[in-house]
């Protein structure tokens, strides 16, 4: 379990990191918390000759702050730091709920939110949450800064629109509507396991009538999935059993899971449906209105 040799670099700024990324091209790789990359390097599924460690890049550690109606989370904020942020837990509680279901305490001390969304593993939990929240990924490269919507970011397993010559600096999350209810519900075999299937749901309601809904799924395709049709079905309707059944069916219809140790594909599609059902019920109960 010893990775191939590499040279180690520790840039202190985004500009310096980008120049190393440009210099080493395919032979370089940035590392944040390392808790996805190092396991892959041990398996020699990743063999960077130059490891560019972002840990000292001050701009990426800018923490969690309010920025004109949105919340900006620095790429290097760890999952543990995100969980500890009380004001974020009040304004956008689904982030803490999801982070608490990632891995275990030691791994959350290292793993970063930026690494989790940049990694591109369909098993990562934050990408679906970011899709449900309609977050934007702030990326910097040779052509300047750009904000990419989470909903269009994931192309295939480990393949995103980030590109090889850019780094993710922050995640921008619009404030969810006031009074919203949200839930991240994940089925896993044990603590520290990736999801058999998981669902992120945000909604608002007036009485029983749904006024806004956003649903996304984890680990039931080679990318996280924004369940657009399922979200649309809820809006304007009473959140009754028949409507929820229709939304669950629409969510199941877009899944394309693989059969693996977590179960056969058909089972995982049904688990995804159950996760959506439970997440809707919890989000509905949590929404004020």
């Amino acid at each position, binding site marked *: *379990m*010893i*990775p*191939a*040799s*590499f*040279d*180690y670099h*520790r840039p202190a700024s985004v500009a310096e990191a980008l120049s190393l990324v440009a210099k080493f091209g395919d032979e370089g790789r940035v*590392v944040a918390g*390392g*808790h996805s990359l*190092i*396991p892959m*390097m*041990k398996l020699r599924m990743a063999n960077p*000759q130059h*490891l560019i*460690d972002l*840990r000292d890049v001050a701009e990426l550690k800018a923490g969690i702050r309010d920025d004109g109606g949105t919340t900006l989370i620095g790429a290097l904020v760890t999952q*543990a730091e995100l969980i500890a942020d009380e004001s974020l837990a009040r304004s956008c509680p689904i982030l803490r709920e999801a982070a608490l279901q990632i*891995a*275990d*305490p*030691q*791994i959350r*001390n*290292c793993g970063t939110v930026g690494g989790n969304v940049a990694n591109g593993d369909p098993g990562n939990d934050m990408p679906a949450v970011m899709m449900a929240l309609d977050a934007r990924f702030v990326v910097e490269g040779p052509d300047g800064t750009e904000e990419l919507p989470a909903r269009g970011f994931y192309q295939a397993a480990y393949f995103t629109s980030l590109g090889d010559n850019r780094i993710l600096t922050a995640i921008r999350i619009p404030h969810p509507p006031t009074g919203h209810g949200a839930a991240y519900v994940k089925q896993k075999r044990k*603590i*520290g396991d990736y999801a058999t299937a998981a669902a992120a749901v945000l909604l608002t309601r007036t009485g029983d009538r749904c006024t806004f809904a956003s649903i996304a799924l984890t680990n039931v395709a080679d990318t996280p999935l924004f369940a657009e049709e399922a979200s649309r079905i809820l809006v304007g309707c009473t959140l009754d059993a028949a409507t929820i059944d229709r939304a669950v069916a629409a969510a199941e219809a877009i899944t394309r899971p693989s059969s693996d140790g977590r179960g056969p594909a058909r089972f995982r599609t049904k688990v995804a449906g159950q996760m959506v059902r439970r997440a809707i019920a919890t989000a509905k109960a949590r929404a004020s209105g």
Partner: protein
Amino acid sequence: MGKMHVKLTVNGRAVEALAEPRTLLIHFLRENLDLTGAHIGCETSHCGACTVDLDGKSVKSCTVFVAQANGADIVTIEGIAHADGTLHALQEAFRQHHGLQCGFCTPGMITRAWRLLQENPNPTEEEVRYGISGNLCRCTGYQNIVKAVLAAAHELSAVKEAAE
């Protein structure tokens, strides 16, 4: 791809060495520094036997390169007993409450629990279970480990109160 110069503090002692950047922190501790307390269980970030404290946080040292730990302050199980050699309350509690059988997971368990009790000095049973959920034990069924951590928390709070 040569070696690099690393400088860290381990159990209060300054350490300098030449190491390949790819060296995992657990290998560096065990092989370069002869600190064989932290164990290698799975080497795949699952079992927690390799848990050490890095800059005030519990981490799995099989998933940290020594290069990343350059400049860090590290505490291993060897640094937890008191300077005069008497056991820390957690170590004593594991002994009293039979919190180990084969002992393989114990250094990681205690090092993790040591940090947990600083983060949360009076945890509930559930918080202890959740707090050590990154550490696997194949022997005890966890019952006595949890008992030991709760007993140590109690003991440490009593000592603190007496001092105040």
